[in-house]
């Protein structure tokens, strides 16, 4: 395992060099995130479909339990149970407009992971960096459990557990646990745990800080130890269910799934599920005793348990919904944790937007009306009153809002419109709006994915490392 150990040291050193200005040391974190012996236990796998470009290149890397789809290159990297989902990468000839210039991609886009250590991380979407549209890079970076790198080229950075960087190019940043950042471009920035930041320069700036004393029971991360708290406990007790889907080669597709819905073979589907048309269920999603109405989706690392989603619901990467009833078109953002209980259900009215990284954890029934905007930490009616607002009212903000731990500056109308536009795009991309002819999306295109596995050296100096592998059509 010497090669793997020295690779880990090399990556940690490179990240530290990039973070020297912030005086942030990833060394104790890197060495205690996952025992290295785990790197030999799991195979890596990749998907092949007629609908996505295929170009995979793995060099001097360890890929235990990781999944690849589309075009990806890993070099001098360790990916542990990480999903690199390249089904939204841009193709050669695609055009985009920036600052009045229309540019064309000179070649197919590729996700390029170099000198990085990613643990249970999701890399998805496409590069939103106008300076690097052909190369979605993740370099000199360490990311912890259940981080999301979504459309965000990242260099020289650290992402804590359950952190999300969304549509943001990031250089030399340390992002604390459970932070959500969507800010266009950031550099040399240190975000404390629990910060939720969405900014569009010139339009709006939204910042919420989770109260640390209330966040700590959910996610507590101390360098030198694995993350702990409610989030990790919740996942841990359901880990066994995933072992079966990863161990069995040929899983039988559950009955009664409409032909235009997509159920990934690496999702856990437990009894009494209703899955309607145009539903998309991604790998590592977990569904149990729930109703997914037409066009609903459950993205990677989502858990939907004892719940009813009426239809066209977006449940973004890592979101959890337990004992809840959601109306039509409810959006639940990245890594949100919505937990009712059997005798105190959470009800969310149609059209409501739950901001990414929102925690709603209740011990009495709670109803959020339709067309509301919800954020932050909510345990009861009082929290809800402070951390929610009708979308119509939020859209009227023109200037400033100071409300509890929320700071907002700019145009509320632009903020709401940006969210609604994005939800529409997600539904379209996911195939929720497919009418039999038009608007095919992931739910229709990702149905028949062949999966191949690849394995590391079982013994010796290279134990845990994968040989150089090139996979092309």
């Amino acid at each position, binding site marked *: 395992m010497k090669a793997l150990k020295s690779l880990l040291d090399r990556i940690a050193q490179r990240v530290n060099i990039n973070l020297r200005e912030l005086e942030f040391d990833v060394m104790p974190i890197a060495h205690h995130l996952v025992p290295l012996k785990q790197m030999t236990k799991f195979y890596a796998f990749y998907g092949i479909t007629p609908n996505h470009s295929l170009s995979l290149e793995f060099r001097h890397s360890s890929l235990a339990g990781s999944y690849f789809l589309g075009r990806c290159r890993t070099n001098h990297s360790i990916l542990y149970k990480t999903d690199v989902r390249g089904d939204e990468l841009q193709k050669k000839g695609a055009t985009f407009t920036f600052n009045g210039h229309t540019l064309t991609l000179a070649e197919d886009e590729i996700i390029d992971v170099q000198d990085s250590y990613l643990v249970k991380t999701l890399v998805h979407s496409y590069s939103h960096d106008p300076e690097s549209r052909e190369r979605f890079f993740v370099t000199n970076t360490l990311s912890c459990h259940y981080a999301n790198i979504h459309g965000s080229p990242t260099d020289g950075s650290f992402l804590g557990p359950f952190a999300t960087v969304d549509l943001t190019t990031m250089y030399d940043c340390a992002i604390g646990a459970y932070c959500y950042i969507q*800010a266009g471009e950031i550099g040399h*920035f240190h975000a404390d745990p629990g910060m939720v*930041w969405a*900014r569009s*320069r010139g339009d709006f*700036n939204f*910042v919420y800080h989770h109260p640390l004393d209330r966040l700590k029971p959910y996610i507590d991360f101390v360098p030198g130890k694995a993350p702990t708290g409610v989030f990790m406990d919740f996942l841990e007790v359901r880990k066994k269910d995933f072992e079966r889907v990863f161990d069995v080669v040929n899983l039988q597709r559950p009955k009664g799934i409409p032909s235009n819905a997509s159920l990934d073979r690496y999702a856990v589907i437990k009894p009494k599920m209703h899955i309607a048309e145009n539903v998309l269920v991604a790998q590592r999603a977990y569904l149990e005793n729930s109703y997914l109405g037409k066009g609903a989706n459950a993205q990677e690392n989502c858990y939907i348990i004892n719940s009813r989603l009426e239809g066209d619901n977006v449940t973004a990467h890592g979101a959890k919904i337990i004992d809840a009833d959601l109306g039509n078109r409810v959006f639940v953002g990245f890594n949100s944790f919505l937990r009712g209980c059997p005798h105190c259900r959470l009800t969310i009215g149609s059209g409501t937007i739950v901001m990414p990284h929102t925690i709603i954890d209740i011990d009495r029934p709670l109803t959020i009306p339709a067309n509301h905007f919800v954020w932050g930490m909510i345990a009861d009616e009082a929290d809800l009153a402070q951390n929610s607002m009708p979308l119509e009212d939020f859209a009227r903000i023109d200037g*400033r809002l*100071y409300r509890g731990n929320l*700071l907002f*500056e700019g145009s509320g109308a632009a903020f709401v419109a940006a969210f609604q536009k994005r939800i529409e795009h997600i539904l379209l991309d996911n195939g929720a709006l497919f009418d039999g002819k038009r608007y095919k999306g992931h739910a229709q295109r990702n149905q028949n994915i062949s999966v191949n596995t690849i394995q590391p050296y079982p013994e010796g100096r290279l134990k845990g490392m994968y040989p150089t592998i090139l996979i092309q059509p």
Partner: protein
Amino acid sequence: MANVTIREIMVPLSEYATVREGATLLDAVLALEKAQEEFEHYQYRHRAVLVLNGEGRVVGKLSQLDVLSALEPGDSSDAELKQLMRLGFSHEFIRGFRKQKRLEAEPLKNLCGKAAGLKVEAFMQAPGEGEYVEATASLDIAVHQLVAGDHLSLLVTQGDAIVGVLRLADVFAAVFHLMKECQLT
């Protein structure tokens, strides 16, 4: 300018307001008041207090702004305000934020009462590398250090010891005097 030395225009340490480590902000304010009363011959009033350690060496300087910072509501610390700027909020927004925090905070009278008992170490500034000047140095050296470092005063040294304080106001007065002389000759 070169003919005037620092020693000629500095305030000797013995005439400056000082407190020992462990003193409270109230002790520092009283020391400042006392120094101002005792040394009325200075044209400009003292605006800072030096903090000395057990051996009598200067370990910090407490300005009027440092004392006022003790009255800031806990949530709007310097670090937090800097963070808001980094996050891209406008100056107007940050002003509004501070005002909001002030409204939510305790009345100023209560804050003053609490601040009086706080230790000077929590608010003093340790002198930086460019804040020392030799007693034998010329005035132009001092002007350069004050301007380049954006300082309100410098600590005057003789060997290893601090022997006085060179205040911006005294340097300005000396420069003003020289300017007038130049015009007359």
